[in-house]
């Protein structure tokens, strides 16, 4: 990790010093234990702020289009997929973008730890072990056990598009849609109850949407007044309508970074919707978004023999 951090800092310093970019978007140490925070480095001397570890959970691609000028960006596998889709969707100019790719071992699920230890007072990560001093208790974890759920099903931990690759590659874990299948296998009533419970937690703060690199609409359908798709209500039905609409808007575009779920202050299982859509898109159209420049978003294309199981049975 340390050599990666050094390399990142060196690269950032060089890029800024050479005037190749105006800003390097990366991570710095956060104000809370096991938290990093996005940072915008604009001068070579500030490059030493940059860090790289298992707390670098934000998808920085979200900032890429919002940040003017030429920018370098630290990209994990999922972040790079997001950049790829954003490039395809005209949200970024390739020449203005310098992608510093870093293979990602996965990020930490702080909420999972705090559920046991209470609010964390202090924590360290060394050699795959996470030592935590919490308000309720102290505990040591294997990193693998407290890895974010998204990262446990990640199929692209290595960046798919880079200008500079830092560090080695990580092994691609075998992964399927076990999480989705588990939910699919539940009864209709159980699934309905599950989503109702999840949606009842939602406070419509839109952290999920705003953290999502693919949610870049000038005006989200939930905010639209004419037509008004939703009322301002925050009951589970309305919240589900919002999340379902959003999941459909991400169909064939979601890069499975999990930023939505991690951003949620309420711990809503938002990915449960997008994962289902991703599974369907993969199964029906053999499509994964943002893994190659040549692959068009699944809903922008069609095939004459696309599946039709959805048709009403007569």
């Amino acid at each position, binding site marked *: 990790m340390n050599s990666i951090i050094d390399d990142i800092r060196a690269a950032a310093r060089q890029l800024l010093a050479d005037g190749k970019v105006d800003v390097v978007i990366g991570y710095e140490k*956060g*104000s*809370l*234990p096991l*938290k*990093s*925070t*996005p*940072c*915008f480095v604009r001068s070579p001397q500030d490059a030493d702020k940059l860090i790289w570890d298992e707390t670098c959970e*934000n998808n920085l691609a*979200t*900032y890429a289009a919002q940040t003017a000028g030429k920018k370098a960006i630290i990209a994990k596998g999922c972040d790079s997929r997001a950049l790829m889709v954003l490039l395809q969707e005209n949200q970024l100019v390739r020449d203005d973008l310098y992608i510093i790719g870093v293979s990602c071992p996965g990020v930490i699920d702080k909420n999972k730890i705090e*559920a046991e230890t*209470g*609010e*964390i*007072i202090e924590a360290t990560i060394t050699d795959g072990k996470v030592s935590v001093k919490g*308000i309720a208790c102290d505990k040591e974890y294997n990193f693998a056990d407290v890895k974010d759920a998204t990262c446990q099903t990640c199929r692209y931990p290595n960046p798919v598009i880079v200008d500079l690759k830092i560090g080695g590659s990580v092994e691609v874990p075998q992964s399927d849609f076990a999480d989705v299948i588990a939910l699919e296998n539940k009864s209709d009533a159980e699934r309905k109850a599950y989503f109702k*419970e*999840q949606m*009842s*937690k939602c*406070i*419509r*703060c*839109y*952290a999920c*949407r*705003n*953290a999502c690199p693919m949610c870049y609409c000038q*005006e989200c359908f939930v*905010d639209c007044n004419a037509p*008004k798709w939703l*009322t*301002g*209500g*925050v*009951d589970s039905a309305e919240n589900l309508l919002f999340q379902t609409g959003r999941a459909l808007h991400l169909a064939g575009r979601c890069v499975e970074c999990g*930023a939505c779920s*991690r*951003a*949620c*202050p*309420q*711990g809503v299982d938002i990915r449960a919707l997008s994962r289902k859509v991703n599974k369907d898109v993969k199964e029906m159209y053999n499509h994964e978004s943002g893994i190659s420049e040549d692959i068009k978003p699944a809903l922008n294309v069609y095939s004459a023999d696309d599946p039709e199981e959805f048709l009403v049975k007569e």
Partner: protein
Amino acid sequence: MKISKEKFGQSFDALTAEYQVVAPVSEAGAVNFKTAKSFSEVKQDYLNSKLPPKSLLFPQHEKLLSYVKEGKDITVKNELKVGKTVLFGIRPCDAKAMLLLDKVFKNDQYRDPYYFDRRDNTVIIGLACNKIAPTCFCSSMGISPACSEGSDLLLIDLGDSYNVEVITEKGKELLASLGELSELSAQEQALVDTVKSAQTTSKVDVSTITAKLDKMFDNSYWDTLHEKCLGCNACSFSCPTCHCFDISEEVIKSEGSRVRTWDACMAPLFTLHGSGHNPRDKKKSRWRQRMMHKFNYFVHNNGDIACVGCGRCIKGCPVNMDIRQAIDGVNKAEVVVD
């Protein structure tokens, strides 16, 4: 004076007959204020609720009135429903926040009936903090983990019993129905003293912030502060003092209603005019607004900082924006005086 938890529990259960009793309840993995039918539902060892209790007086989405059109006739119905409520177990920071909200919803010209009809019918039983989270900084905001401001009764958890302190007349009245009190032991008294003298470990300096901000509207500090903010409403909606709202009409078929919904200054739409013009169209101006409102405008208007140091916005922020750092930044910012 103290009351045993067993006794308190019985009284609590009895209260539910007459009052809507709202208390911290664990639901779907989080502790929040919900209507409790019995004391056994109440979560005991919680730091603070995930969401602030403000929605009990100021719901996130509230029907103000409704109307029905039949043929050419229209009938209007007032939707305000009020019952007597006991709010149990709120922390001193949130109790203080209620006092700040009171200032918003009532002034010389106006009293918001939806808020105040509920507020006036609510008795607040505060519960002091035995444990203090690293994100708590109420001590910097003029209160403390056992502050009684805003509570009608203040309890301190002594294990098997609560230390009870009567703060207001309302509290005193309610106390009568809670049962007999007994004296504290010396050991218990020592615990009470410890809790009362406790301070948060995390501190910020707001001693000069209001004055400083007077001079900072055009400061370059705002140019970078906002940069990583995603513009979501997580901080506002989890803040016990944020109180902005939007009023809209919702019509389906021939029935409609006028509703009030939380809004927040971090969203670009908050200030979007019908014309398409948006006076606060940049994140920069929205973050400045947030800081100005809490630490300057509100102070000028209401004499108080609109932050109680609960730390919820710090925990809820998806990108770890920390209001303590933002305050620090203001303190450190260079102010050029003309």
